[in-house]
């Protein structure tokens, strides 16, 4: 039997308590390494799947999060954010007149009609386009360098430095083409690709109107109306007042409602949800099997010791607790290295795949809960041997 390092003994546990589970766990170092390796990889698998899932969903929600407003107008028939379904500008102007509204400005957008020319190889690629009045930038683009106001000049563009590499959106380039029209690059931002697009450009409303004029050469329709409230006004009341003033073809939404629409759409329609959920589930089951194997083997080896303890009067309840504690420790011993490794992997994979893989506290917590529950379920399944144990039979 191993004598725990004195350092550990001082810290853990309180005096008078024999940390049997801990000692069992650390008694055989090679086995501990083996078991934490086994559980750890299963945890790592779950963490990667969860991370991918988060990254995908967050990527499609991020642009909505970055809309700088309190209330939003869009076509009632718009079923997701990344689809063009514009509404007339006059509805936005009508909303501006509602009391409590401080400002109401348009976001123009398109996902499927604008091709960016990679200046280095001359090939054209579909990109997402966002446009606004340069004096009223309703979209807070991340990491903007360059002057937004330069977008008021015709045929100028801000490019996405985090776009997929084959688009050639290198910050050093000075000009390229959008749908064959020469444009000047006046700066960049750091957004990155998502489900719908490999890269994004931001342009001024006038450039957008030239690129994608409305039917009959009219100014293009507004994709999202971004409304800011006067300080102190009641958002619910103002939303209701705007609703009353606009035709039913226009949806009046809070940011939470806008996010909800997108989240529901993604969960409903995209394959990413089930794919990663299945990956996580498989990781969980594999982890459970590994944990069961570890606990079962350990119990088999310690059976005489458990029988002895039973014989000298320890209650089954205590022994069960020891087994469960040990399972929880094994889980932790696998989770900690897996969690650390996943942070490294997130940043490597995120960099290579241009996904925003971030380790958040809730992700850490979810994976920890999954790990502990997979170990505890295995322990509960394996512990029946201890419960059924009859000291007389063992010896």
């Amino acid at each position, binding site marked *: 039997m191993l004598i725990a390092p004195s350092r550990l003994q001082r810290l853990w546990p309180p005096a008078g308590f024999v940390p049997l589970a801990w000692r069992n766990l650390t008694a055989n170092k090679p086995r501990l390494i083996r078991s934490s390796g*086994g559980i750890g990889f299963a945890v790592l*698998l779950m963490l990667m799947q969860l991370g*991918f899932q988060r990254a995908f969903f967050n990527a499609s929600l991020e642009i909505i999060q970055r809309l700088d407003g309190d209330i939003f107008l869009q076509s009632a028939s718009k079923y997701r954010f990344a689809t063009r379904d514009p509404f007339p500008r006059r509805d936005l102007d009508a909303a501006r007149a509602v009391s409590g509204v401080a400002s109401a400005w348009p976001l123009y957008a398109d996902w499927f009609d604008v091709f960016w020319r990679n200046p280095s190889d001359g090939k054209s690629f579909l990109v997402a386009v966002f446009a606004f009045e340069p004096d009223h930038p309703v979209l807070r683009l991340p990491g903007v360098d360059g002057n937004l106001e330069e977008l008021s000049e015709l045929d100028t563009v801000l490019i996405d430095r985090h776009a997929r590499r084959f688009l050639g959106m290198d910050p050093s380039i000075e000009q390229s083409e959008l749908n064959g029209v020469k444009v000047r690059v006046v700066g960049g931002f750091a957004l990155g690709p998502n489900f719908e697009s490999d890269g994004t450009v931001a342009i001024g409303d006038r450039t957008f109107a030239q690129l994608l004029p409305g039917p009959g050469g009219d100014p293009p329709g507004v994709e999202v109306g971004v409304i800011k409230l006067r300080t102190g006004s009641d958002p619910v009341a103002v939303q209701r007042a705007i609703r009353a003033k606009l035709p039913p073809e226009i949806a009046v939404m809070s940011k939470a409602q806008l996010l909800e629409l997108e989240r529901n759409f993604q969960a409903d329609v995209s394959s990413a949800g089930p794919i990663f959920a299945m990956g996580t589930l*498989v990781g969980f089951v594999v982890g459970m099997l590994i944990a069961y194997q570890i606990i079962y083997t350990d119990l088999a080896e310690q059976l005489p010791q458990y029988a002895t303890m039973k014989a000298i009067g320890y209650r089954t309840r205590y022994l069960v607790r020891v087994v469960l504690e040990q399972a929880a420790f094994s889980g932790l011993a696998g989770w900690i290295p897996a969690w650390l490794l996943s942070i490294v*992997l997130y940043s490597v*994979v995120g960099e290579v795949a241009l996904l925003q893989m971030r380790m958040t506290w809730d992700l850490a917590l979810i994976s920890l809960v999954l790990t502990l529950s997979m170990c505890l379920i295995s322990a509960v399944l394996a512990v029946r041997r201890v419960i059924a144990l009859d000291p007389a039979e063992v010896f």
Partner: protein
Amino acid sequence: MTEAQVGVGRARQPKRVALAWRILTYEKGRTALAIAGVFMAILLIFVELGFFFAVPQGGMLLYDNMQFDLLMCSNQYEYQAQPGQFPRSQLEQARALPEVAQATPLYFGSAKWRSGEDGKWPDVFVIGFDPQRRLFEVDDINRQLGVLEETDTVLVDTGTRPMFGPLTTGRVVKIGDRTETIGGRYDLGTGFMGLGVILVSDLNFARLFPYRSLDQVNLGPIQLKAGVEPNRAAEELRKLVGPDTRIFTRSELEAHEAAYWTTRTSVGLIFGSGLIISFIVGIMVVYQTLATQVSRLLPQFATLKAIGYANRFLDGTVITMSLLIVIVGFVPATAAALGLYSVIRDETLLPVAMTATRLATVFAATLVMASISALLSLSSLRRADPADVF
């Protein structure tokens, strides 16, 4: 090493298997657990591999159901749903070649399906072609080609999502600025074309997209006359059409689409990393089992050593145990993978399917996995020193 020893080694081959088998069958519960672990690991590899190939294959869905030997497209071609455009005159030139039996223009467009559930207007992917031509290999389509000739009538893919509302024949829907009637359904799959796909005649396509000219074609599937070698005909055509138009043979097209999905999107990385992790998990599981067995049976192994069995024999026994575990685990894992693939097909509408190559690949990977785990656990076996144990 003397010849006699080598001879003995050979004679012991079946004995080694027999010993490994007896160790494994001695404690059935423990072995069953090991096999269950291996089973899950192999299943995981199947699933990741399934996704890895399903995504490019989802992109091939339309092509796999079309009759053609060569595909003409613009040199701006990215992948099937983003093909670019080229002039129809080039297809007509191609048709004039003696090798070419048929060259059909295919049109792609995206329109608002203005009759969705809850007043939403989902985007529908529209495929236009001349219904006089039998372009598709799908019976449902070929049977209903006559329906497409009716004015403002469409055929709907059964994979179209529920948000488009009921897909019943006779339902009148608004698509773009037109009122169309659903003439029937066909079973092909939406792949990565979108949430819903409809087929229309080229004439109807022109009505749906009035600003588009039928002189600009998205894809030109070409059928060659019997006996014509596709590669040679492709060379011939390339000379004819010039650099702005591209000619793919079927195998070139397949390679292009697979490369697009694995390198241009995150697919390769995501499922590639999943594949690697599941492989490592598999190694861990088998290693776990073997190392436990070896350390438990250390006295017995030491005894064998003491009575003169060579290290090689003991190593061989552990490796054999490892192989036996994974081979036995492989069988149910394959069966479960088949079941899981069909669940995935229903859930994600991706064409995940088992192929002979995949089966062979996973089996080979499994054997590698077993060998690595066995080699890792040999170090514990080395500890079997008769002098120490007793």
